[in-house]
């Protein structure tokens, strides 16, 4: 266990192995519960009802009930029930969910007029990004203004801080009344859910702009406007980008609330529908797909951030491997404590070492 220790850096191999394990371990747990009968499997699916008057083949009953029934059947002298241990319907096995992942895209909607799975998904994505985009359009400029000009901080933030504690879902009914039953109130819920977090978050990040850089710009004759646009904003941009990534996650969370407002739609409608039909593997498939979209989206944004803000890790990039030895001033080497040898060398070289 030489790779475990406080703040101990990991080799590339160990990193990859650990990342894979973090997915494999939960999957292994799921497989164990699903495929090894004696671990969980609390129910018994009746395969042959025998002499029982209570059950028919296909019933899923608790093990204790099954045993009692068989005991009483035995006492009566009737044929005993036969059955196999199963997990509850809400706990499908991995292979069932994997199958559902494929079939959910292929299965046509059960009723005419209903939408396909991918259509629900696209609709959800549209709602999330529209709501989040409007939120950014207002939240970013206002937040930056609050974070850089104390007057606007006092003028805007106290109310926003108060409003922030209203749970976004409570505006559902109100938004439907104002905006109708279609997509508008859903977008509004996403907006309310993210905007009132985004503004204080953006302001707090903007306030962390480095004073030293602002002062340096001021002593170079930069105007207030120039300090804001050319120093504060580029200085905090990488942090703001990270904030937006976090808030986009919030937007996805509010999606589930937004989609039950007015007419149910999108992925939430699909999930509720499938749960109603008790096709839980489809429910899991939809949840897994939501997770994947979130993960991919975040990975893409992280990559994009690295491209935009390449200067951040300039010191570790290939260009940055220029070491100080290479560029230190060699013409004037001057030290308070020169050894006699160094002095001689310096004299011989016209003052150079």
């Amino acid at each position, binding site marked *: 266990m030489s790779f475990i220790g406080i703040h101990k850096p990991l080799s590339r191999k160990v990193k990859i192995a650990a990342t894979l394990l973090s997915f494999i371990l939960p999957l292994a747990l799921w497989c164990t519960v699903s495929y090894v009968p004696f671990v969980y499997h609390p129910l018994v699916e009746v395969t042959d009802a025998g002499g029982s008057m209570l059950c028919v083949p296909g019933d899923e009953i608790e093990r204790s009930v099954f045993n009692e029934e068989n005991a009483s059947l035995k006492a009566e002298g009737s044929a005993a029930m036969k059955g196999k241990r199963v997990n509850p319907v809400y706990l499908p096995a991995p292979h069932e969910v994997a199958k559902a992942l494929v079939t959910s895209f292929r299965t046509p909607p059960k009723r005419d007029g209903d939408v396909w799975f991918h259509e629900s998904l696209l609709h959800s994505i549209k709602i999330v990004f529209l709501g989040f985009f409007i939120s950014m359009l207002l939240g970013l400029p206002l937040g930056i203004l609050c974070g850089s000009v104390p007057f606007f901080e006092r003028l805007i933030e106290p109310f926003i801080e108060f409003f922030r504690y209203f749970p976004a879902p409570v505006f559902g009914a109100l938004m439907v009344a104002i905006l109708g039953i279609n997509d508008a109130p859903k977008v509004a819920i996403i907006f309310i859910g993210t905007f009132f977090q985004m503004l204080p978050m953006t302001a707090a990040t903007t306030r962390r702009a480095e004073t030293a850089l602002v002062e*340096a710009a001021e002593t170079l004759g930069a105007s207030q406007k120039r300090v804001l646009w050319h120093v504060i904003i580029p200085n905090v941009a990488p942090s703001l980008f990270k904030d937006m990534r976090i808030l986009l996650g919030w937007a996805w969370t509010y999606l589930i609330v937004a989609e039950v407002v007015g007419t149910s739609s999108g992925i939430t409608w699909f999930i509720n529908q499938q749960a109603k039909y008790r096709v839980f593997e489809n429910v899991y498939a939809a949840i897994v797909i939501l997770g994947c979209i979130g993960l991919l989206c975040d990975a893409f944004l992280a990559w994009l951030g690295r491209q935009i803000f390449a200067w951040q890790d300039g*010191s570790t990039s290939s*260009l940055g491997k220029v070491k100080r030895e290479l560029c*230190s001033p060699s013409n*004037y080497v001057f*030290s*308070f404590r020169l050894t006699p040898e160094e002095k001689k060398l310096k004299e011989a070289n016209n003052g150079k070492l």
Partner: protein
Amino acid sequence: MENSDIILEARGIVKDFRESDGRFRRVLDGISFSVREHEFLSIIGPSGCGKSTLIRIAAGLETASAGEFRLDGKVVKGTDAERGMVFQKYTLFPWLSVKKNVMFGLESIGHGGDEAEEAALEWLQIVGLGKYAEYYPGQLSGGMQQRVAIARALAPQPRVLLMDEPFGALDAQTRSQMQSYLLEVWKNIDITILFVTHDLDEAVFLSDRILALQANPGKVREDVAVHVPRPRTGESLFLPEFIGTRKHIEELIHPADAPAEKETFNIINLKKRK
């Protein structure tokens, strides 16, 4: 000293800071001095004498409670490109290339485009970093970053260059190289330098004149002319003038009869506890 060539003048600078208990503490108590054209003046003093505050007031980053700085006879107010500044902290903009950093001040005062770019490259040549124009600050060593910072501060051609312990964060070897560099730049261009430091050798090695401050509250203790001949090299450190001036200033800022700094600290802490 002729009055006509005075470029920067401090007149009775006073600075009071409000303490957490609401009382005012006087940091600077009536500081007056003047700097002549193309002079190299250092301000030195023990910690807490307000030397950094003083230079920040000169830059316009802080306001004096009383008194004023005059540049070419005009009272200074706020920051502008007339008084360039180099800080102890690395203050290059990490998202701009070295060249763009040097262009920043020029663009701030309305010189954009090719003209600014040419000037920036020229300034980078002067500080010996012409090759690194397209590098980002994160790719440079601390000493190189400070040289770019000097080029950046000089590019808009300020009347005076204010330097607040600019080499304080560098290691001893790099620091002495930087001192020689600075003297070289100062010799070759027409600039007046006001330099804050707590390093005695640095002050004596660089300056024409040294303003020794005393602490609590900060006052001018003595205005010392440095008679070490120029150009100064490593050998200058062993000249009797150097050693004499150094010893004199050391006695000024650490008087033998003053209580040791550590004891003063303990007394302050005790008072706070009560």
